[in-house]
């Protein structure tokens, strides 16, 4: 298609200081998106390194690489960083870069607010990490920060609360920006029913952030007040209650897991159709499923409190099991999209398939745990650790890698090396399963999570060795991915505008796109405008011949 091949003539090279200043002061959603990704992958390295240290500690029973107090800090900060500084911002980074492109907009609705959202993020992350530098160390009450343990923490705990307050403001501003951008800045012809699923998913994620996150903010405010102002929200001795903590935390905490996965579903719903050569099966069904998940996600928080005796377990079982219905719709629609398609096993598709396979395991774990009878047995064991990693690593991180291979050419004008991508995929898939599948057995056998050591005669040693070797394999796979990144970035920009024969508007502009995004905006008559263009061109050619 001729219109996409427009190349902007190379401008005169600008001095390095000037270029750095351009990045630091930019309000361009594409640059901000890339900064989101760079920031998140940097924190991913931190969080990953903590995971490696924990797995090394657990490599053998009675290990004393770390004291229990240090180990508590490690798992607390690992979880916190991965959830708040890595997974959510990675998805927000892709959203920042691609939502405006996919809806044919020039930028986000509030470009300066967008820059503020980004810069608050590393600021909050540094406040979190500063905990390691203060007396008493970083926060150590787990990422769920339960009382009364969290009330007893030292300065690191306050830094944790303040850091997450900052990150929360960043997320909230970002979410408002996404919603307004998607509702107001769509190109002519782009009705909501023609919007790419990734945009729907980002819209859904943003709604969840707006409606769930404030509960956590309130929770943090109460925690800070209890710690420093003498209030008694969480102190049962003076009229407060631990239930106040649990309810305000999990009202946010469960929608949060959908905040961490919904945009990943969006990514998969983009990639699977493109590499199957078919439209997405059941577009309306997928959109409806996303909306149902949002609605239901606010009614399930009590399943985190089954064993407390504070909630009506049967009610929360029903709502939790119900949520597997829309999730199942998504699975079946992805499978039906591939059915009879001409599947191309390019790196993005491999990671997408990896996502589907791993997420289904995580999902089935979830269905098990939604049963209180089962939950009483496995609550706070390694089974839960396994579940959350199958969902967030096997799920979201696989989707993020799929997105990385899919969109990297668009962002940089360079194709990532395919062979290294295959090595990365297989190492990560094998490493991931070796690391996390054994945790199911450890959990069923009663190994509690968050323990720094276990007895040699517990029978858990072999499975822990297995799990740790898998973790190291994941680390190796990440080094392969990093090598691929470094090698590719030194190559010339040769990627075409549309290397994958994509469907959505981001493929209608050059790779990378010009600052104003589009020189020519193609007409939008369906949810696959770029596919329509390609087909029109072919039809014309045939008619001409």
């Amino acid at each position, binding site marked *: 298609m001729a219109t996409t091949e427009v190349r902007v003539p190379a401008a005169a090279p600008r001095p390095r200081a000037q270029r750095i200043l351009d990045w630091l002061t930019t309000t361009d959603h594409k640059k901000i998106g890339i900064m989101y990704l760079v920031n998140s992958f940097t924190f991913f390295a931190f969080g990953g390194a903590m995971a490696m240290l924990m797995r090394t500690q657990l490599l053998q029973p009675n290990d004393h690489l770390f004291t229990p107090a240090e180990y508590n800090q490690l798992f607390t900060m690992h979880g916190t960083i991965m959830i708040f500084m890595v997974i959510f911002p990675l998805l927000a980074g892709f959203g920042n870069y691609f939502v405006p492109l996919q809806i044919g907009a020039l930028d986000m609705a509030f470009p300066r607010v967008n820059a503020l959202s980004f810069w608050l993020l590393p600021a909050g992350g540094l406040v979190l990490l500063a905990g390691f530098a203060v007396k008493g160390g970083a926060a150590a009450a787990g990422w769920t920060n339960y009382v009364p343990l969290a009330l007893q923490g030292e300065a690191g705990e306050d830094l944790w609360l303040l850091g997450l307050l900052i990150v929360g403001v960043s997320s909230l501003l970002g979410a408002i920006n996404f919603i307004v951008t998607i509702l*107001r800045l769509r190109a002519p012809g782009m009705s909501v029913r023609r919007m790419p699923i990734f945009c729907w998913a980002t819209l859904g994620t943003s709604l969840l952030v707006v409606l769930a996150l404030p509960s956590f903010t309130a929770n943090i405010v109460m925690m800070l007040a209890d710690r420093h102002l003498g209030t008694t929200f969480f102190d049962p001795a003076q009229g407060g209650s631990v239930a106040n903590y649990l309810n305000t935390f999990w009202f946010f905490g469960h929608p949060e897991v959908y905040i961490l996965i919904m945009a990943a579903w969006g990514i998969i719903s983009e990639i699977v159709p493109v590499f199957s050569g078919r439209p997405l099966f059941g577009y309306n069904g997928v959109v409806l499923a996303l909306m149902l998940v949002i609605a239901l996600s606010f009614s399930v928080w009590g399943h985190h409190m089954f064993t407390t005796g504070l909630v009506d377990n049967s009610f929360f079982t029903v709502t939790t099991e119900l949520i597997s219905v829309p999730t199942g719709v998504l699975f079946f629609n992805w499978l039906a999209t591939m059915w009879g398609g001409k599947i191309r096993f390019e790196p993005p598709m491999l990671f997408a398939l990896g996502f589907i396979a791993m997420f289904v395991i995580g999902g089935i774990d979830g269905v098990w745990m939604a049963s209180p009878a089962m939950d009483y047995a496995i609550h706070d064991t390694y089974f839960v650790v396994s579940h959350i990693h199958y969902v967030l690593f096997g799920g979201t991180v696989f989707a993020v890698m799929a997105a990385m291979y899919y969109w990297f050419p668009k962002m940089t004008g360079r194709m990532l090396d395919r062979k290294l991508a295959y090595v990365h995929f297989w190492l990560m898939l094998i490493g991931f399963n070796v690391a996390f599948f054994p945790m199911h057995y450890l959990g069923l056998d009663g190994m509690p999570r968050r323990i720094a050591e276990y007895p040699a005669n517990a029978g858990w040693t072999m499975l822990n060795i297995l799990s740790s070797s898998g973790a190291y394999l994941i680390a190796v796979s990440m080094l392969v991915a990093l090598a691929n990144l470094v090698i590719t970035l030194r190559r010339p920009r040769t990627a075409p505008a549309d290397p994958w024969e994509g469907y959505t508007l981001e493929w209608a502009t050059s790779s990378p796109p010009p600052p104003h995004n589009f020189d020519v905006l193609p007409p939008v008559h369906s949810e696959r405008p770029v596919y329509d263009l390609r087909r029109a061109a072919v039809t014309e050619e045939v008619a001409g011949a």
Partner: protein
Amino acid sequence: MSAVERVMQAAEDQRGTRAISSSVMGMAIFVASEAIFFAAFFGVYASSFASESVWPPKQIPLPGLVIPTADVIVLVLSGLFLTGALATLRRGAERTTVLWLAAATAGALGFLALLLAGYAGVGFGIKDGIYASLFYVVTGLEVAHAVGGVVLFGTVFVRAANGELALRHDPVQAAALYWYFVIALGIVVFLIFYLGATL
């Protein structure tokens, strides 16, 4: 302006007649998140209320009603002034709008002053249990939101006085949306912590 920008602008103009502006929509979403934020505290209030036999607890002296009642009246008045500002704005009477805005800002300042003055009549401290915790944290957040409103009004007022209203109405509309939320909050706080506690 490139061809694309012209197309985008045309689409924007076409929508502009029936759609609300980005800043008003952004503020509406922000206010929704604020509502959830305060709902968390009122949720804690409700569960504490349900689990105590005497509420407010016996050791909590009841607050006087005079200043808080005056306060909530001033608050509602500021909302009425604001509604006047929005109405004149729709008619294109920008000069009158500036006057209404000045009155609304004065109302907001009066509300804030009375809110702070009201603390003098409170006979318990923040450390006196769950009721005191809720009272001080919720009213403290109310003060913070009132300060935010005054700042917002200040900036909007300066822009309006500089004649910006002829160009765009949405900053005033967005600020108004926020202040209506603060008014709703002020009324709920009054009903729960003053009137409701006394009855």
